[in-house]
Structure formats: C-alpha cells, structure tokens
C-alpha cells in the first residue's frame, strides 16, 4: 500500500486519531484493571508473598455486610445527587440566563464550591457540624429549634445525609454552568413562538427549555451516576466512612481495606466489584435514556 492509499484507508486514519488516547489509556487505565482482578484471587498485604486463594475473596465479598451496606450508600448517594443537583442546578441556570444585573458576579461566586479542594470543604463543614460550636446547631438554638440540634457526624442514623450535603453543595455549580450554556444555546425563536401562543414563564420552561435540554440532562446524569458510585474524597476527609461504617462508600471501604488494613487482595476485589457495578449501571442508564449513544 502506498502512502496515498494509506491516508485514504479509514481504519488507518481512525487508528491515527485514536492512537494518542489509546496509549495513555493502555498504560494508566487498562493495565490496572486486569491487575486488580488478578490480585483479587490472592491473599496479599501489598508487600510480602502472595498466597493464592481462588475465589475466597469473592465469596467473602458476597457475604460481607459492610460491602453491601456501602454499596447501598453509593446508590443512595446516586439518588440524592440526581434529585438535588439537577433541579437546583437547572433552577439557578434558568435564573442566571435571564437578563439580570450582576449575573456575572453571581456566576463567579456560585462557582466557588467547585474550585475549593475537598480538604478545604471538609474543614469548613466539620466546623459547621460541630455539636457544641457549630454554625448549624448555633442557628437552630438561636431560632428556638433546640430539639432539632444534632450530633450531625456522630449519629449513625443521619451521618450519611450530613456528609452527602457538602457533596451536593460542591457539584451543583458544575451542572449549573453546563445547563446555563445549554439554555443559551436554545434558539430564541422557540421562545418567541411560545410567547405568541400566550405561554407564561412556567409553560415556557416545561414546554421549551426542558425538552431542549433533554440530551444535556441525560449526559449530566451519567456524570452524576458515575461520580457518585466512585465517590471518595469528602467522605474520607469528614468521617473516614464512620462511625461504625455508617457513612462508608465502596471507595472508602476499598481504601481502608487496601491501605489501612493492608489487605490488598480484598481491596482489589472491592475495586473490581465497584468497577463492574458502575459500568453496568451507566450502560443500562444510557440504554434506557437514549436509543443510540452515537446518534
């Protein structure tokens, strides 16, 4: 094949376009997964000799109540995030895309939670939740709602919701700017036509804005689902998954198994399980929300 033919061969061209991405992925993304799968068949502390266990780690995983409850927490986080982040982000995006004064100031400050590191955010929220000095209990006491004061991070029944709150807070801005961009992309004529038909603001939102944003909402949902299923940072910083695993997620559990307890074999088992769960859920979600991901 001469050069010209080669450059007309679409397989070759596709390969050229994909090559750089494939190299990075192969080295850093693809290798670790089979490796983790391999480790999951061993008893291994990460340092010493490896002892072949067969499927023991997997059997243990299936009967490990902490793994199941952490997976349940992950799904709870998915549900909470979808229900809270998307509507609030949409609402803010709609407000900010109206012609109002100071919009760019609001946009800047609204984006701050996304810019701060999880360490900073965890610091702030730890003091918000402090039962004695915290801002939340302080405000509740001030307005005469003493009975609602809580040990927000110490009570196993509510700790999960307490740590889920800053996660919502942090990621709303991301979806807000995504929705804002999508909204300003909607052709003005559609709104004009609706106005002529006598539609009010709510009707315009439900019959023009929302349908036009469908694809954007679906993709944002995928990002939320994947992000929530492998979430780690803020929960690790705030509670480490405790007390007594009440706020444990799959990723925090895999970290403490692998690095705190030095049970790399079992930690790898959890990470493969996490990978499979996240993959299945997102593929199923995409199947149901779009007939064809390509078109």
């Amino acid at each position, binding site marked *: 094949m001469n050069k010209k033919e080669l450059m007309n061969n679409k397989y070759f061209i596709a390969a050229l376009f994909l090559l750089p991405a494939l190299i990075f992925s192969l080295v*850093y993304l693809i290798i670790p*997964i089979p490796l983790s799968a391999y480790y999951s068949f061993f008893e291994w502390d990460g340092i010493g000799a490896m002892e072949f266990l067969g499927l023991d780690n997997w059997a243990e995983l299936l009967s490990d109540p902490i793994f199941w409850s952490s997976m349940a927490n992950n799904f709870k986080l998915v549900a909470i995030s979808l229900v809270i982040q998307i509507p609030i982000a949409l609402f803010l995006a709609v407000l900010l895309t109206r012609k109002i004064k100071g919009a760019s100031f*609001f946009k*800047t400050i609204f984006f701050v939670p996304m810019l*701060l590191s999880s360490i900073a955010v965890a610091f702030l929220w730890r003091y918000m939740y402090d039962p004695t000095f915290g801002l939340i209990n302080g405000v509740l006491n001030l307005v005469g709602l003493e009975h609602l004061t809580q040990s927000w991070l110490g009570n196993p029944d509510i700790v999960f919701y307490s740590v889920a709150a800053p996660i919502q*807070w942090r990621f709303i801005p991301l979806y807000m700017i995504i929705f804002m961009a999508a909204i300003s992309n909607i052709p003005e004529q559609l709104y004009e036509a609706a106005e002529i038909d006598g539609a009010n603001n709510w009707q315009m939102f439900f019959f023009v804005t929302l349908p036009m944003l469908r694809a954007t909402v679906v993709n944002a949902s995928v990002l939320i689902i994947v992000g929530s299923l492998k979430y780690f940072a803020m929960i690790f910083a705030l509670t480490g998954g405790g007390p007594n695993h009440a706020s444990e997620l799959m990723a925090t559990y895999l*970290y403490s198994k692998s690095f705190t307890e030095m049970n790399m074999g079992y930690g790898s088992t959890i990470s493969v399980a996490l*990978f499979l769960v996240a993959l299945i859920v997102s593929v199923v979600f995409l199947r149901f929300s779009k007939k064809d991901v390509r078109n």
Partner: protein
Amino acid sequence: MVNRIKKLVIYLFLSIWLVITGYPLVFLVQNSFKVRLEFFRNPVWSLPANFTLQNYIEVMESGFYIYFINSIIVCFISVAIIIIVSALASYAISRIDFKFNKLVYILFLAGMMIPIHSTLIPIYKITLSMGLYDRLSALIGPYVAFSLPISVFILTGFINDIPYELEEAAIIDGASRFRIFKDIILPLVKPAISTVAIYNLTLLWNQFAYALVLTSSPGKRILTLGLFEFQGQHGINIPLTLTALFLSVLPLIVLYVFLQEHIIKGMTAGALKG
C-alpha cells in the same frame, strides 16, 4: 409591579445561594488572620480580634511558591494534552466509521468507572519502570489518562451535534481528515473545549493521591501536598492550614474571573449535548 416582585424574588433566591456558596471564602479569609491561640479560644465564626499577617508570612516562607509553580506546570501541561488527545479521539469516534466506534466509546466510558486508589500501586510500578519516578512529568500520564474518559464523553456528544454538511463540501474538495479536523471541527468545538478545560483544571488542581506516591523530593512537591505541611502527628496548626488553603484556591478564582466571560461565552455556543 408584578415584574418588580418577580425581580425581587429572583434576587432573593440568588442572594440566599450567594451566601451558601460564598461563605467558605469568607470563612477561610477571616480565620487566616487569627493566631492559633485565638482560633481555639473564640468561635471559628467570629472575626479576628487581633488582625495578624503572621500566617501569610509563614506560608510564603514554607516553600509554598515552589509547590505553586509545580502545580501550575503539571496542571497546565496536562490540560493541554488532554484537550488535544481527547479531541482527536472524539473526532474518530464520532465521524470515522471504523466499525468499532461503539466499542471504543464504551471502553472510554468504562475508564470513568475506575477507582483511583486501586490504580496507585500499578501506576507506581509503571512509573518506576519508565524511570519517571520523582519527576513532575510522572504526574502528567495519570492525570491525562484519568481525565480522558470524561473529556471524550463530553466532546463526542458535542461533535455528534455538528451538522455533517459542513464537512461534506471539504471532503468533496479532497481535503484530508486532519485538515477537516483542524480547520472545521476544532473551531466549532472550541466552546466544548472550554468546558473540558475548566472542568479538568479544577479537578487536577486539587488532585493529590498520585503526587503523594509518585513524587518524593520536596522540590517536586505540588500544592495539595504542601497543604499537609501544617499537620503534625498529634496536632495541626489550623489557621495556618486555612491560610494555605485560601492561597491555593486564590489563583483558580482569579483565573476563573478572568476567563469567565470567555468560558461562558464559549459554552454558550456549545453546551454538553448528547
């Protein structure tokens, strides 16, 4: 009148949200002016009684600016590579029919599901064998790889949305694929690229696990690692840590304000679409 009330309600909502999102900055700033003694004695919500710049001086003297420069180098190079590499891949997935498009797309999607901590040891070994250990460049590989899936996800959706007619004329004229990519597609996806850039930049700026294991010498340290300097085995200098946190987020905020108009405008033309 109705319009006025409407406006008022809107501003009310916006102001509430302003407090909720803006307060952390106030919190960081007000506590960065306190000394340790005062921090522990008075509520963290109170204003500093004795204004001090001591924390800022100490943070600056701790080698913070080196970490700062390192962070900038690593993050900006990584983001530049991410943009090029993911744009190329997205174009192939979206426009060149090579039969495995869907499979490749799913593979990239799968890349989003990989938990970072299960890759630490494999990536550490790979980095060692490539001789990149304890170099800033060691971070670029994992940074790029972990940002690729989501970037490809965003860009593919966007390129799918571009009307094919724009390229048709060029193809008939016999333009090469690279030409089409460079002259037609790239200018059109600029908006989506800004989304990808700001998203990855904020995530990578706060990334921390890879730098912890892949670099060692203090001269190669990045900002997020430097933040832990003020934590000892049994104690922490909290005002100093908060000062460092504030100084580390400041450049991102400035950059965001600076780029904001451009980014939003950019994204106006190209939202995250499927």
